[in-house]
């Protein structure tokens, strides 16, 4: 009797395509996460909830610079929002955004508005005593500890793996 065995899977095929699948997965993740980061900045959200409101001094500095005092905490001029760009290795942002996400201590006593700019809102240019003040973290950027996927995304990726395993 001649026995014929047919298999419906091929581990060799899977091994060959995993690298490409992971690479596509990374590209998609970078795009999705950069969009999510933009949404957080526009809405004034951290990765877990709402950002801490602007301090009174923060509101005054915005008025002096001619920015909206009511827009979200990290979205005064739109500079940070517009700096969020997906690139091959991740998401590029203005470094100010990273400091804000981690929290920092102010080093200077700035005169606002800076340089030769005129004060807006009918206010006078003034110096703020900010040096040594701790700015609390507005954690709007994920790190590898907090970055988690929706189950659906991981399941879809695993479905692709399953497909690649089939002959």
């Amino acid at each position: 009797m001649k026995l014929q065995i047919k298999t419906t899977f091929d581990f060799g095929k899977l091994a060959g395509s995993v690298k490409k699948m992971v690479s596509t997965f990374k590209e998609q993740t970078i795009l999705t996460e950069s969009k999510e980061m933009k949404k957080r900045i526009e809405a004034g959200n951290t990765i877990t909830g709402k950002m801490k409101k602007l301090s009174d001094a923060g509101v005054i500095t915005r008025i002096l610079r001619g920015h909206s005092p009511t827009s979200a905490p990290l979205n005064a001029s739109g500079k940070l929002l517009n700096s969020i760009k997906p690139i091959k290795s991740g998401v590029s942002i203005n470094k100010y955004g990273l400091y804000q996400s981690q929290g920092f201590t102010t080093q200077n006593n700035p005169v606002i508005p800076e340089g030769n700019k005129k004060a807006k809102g009918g206010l006078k240019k003034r110096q703020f005593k900010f040096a040594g003040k701790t700015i609390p973290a507005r954690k709007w950027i994920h790190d590898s500890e907090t970055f988690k996927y929706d189950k659906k995304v991981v399941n879809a990726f695993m479905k692709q793996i399953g497909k690649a395993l089939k002959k």
Partner: protein
Amino acid sequence: MKKHAKRLRELHQFNLELPGKITDYLDEKLVPVSEMAEKVAESAIVSKLGIYQKAKKMGEEFAREITD
């Protein structure tokens, strides 16, 4: 004249060394989303690896049993 030219050439030869990473000198910072995604993908694959290995072993054993 040659002397001056030589001195000028020497003036242009200098090595500039900046400590730290190049990103420290740029206004842009990188959020390493690519690394994070890779980690997620790897852990997803690793979590299913046991099942794949079992399936592979089972298939091999089955083939051996019916061909021996």
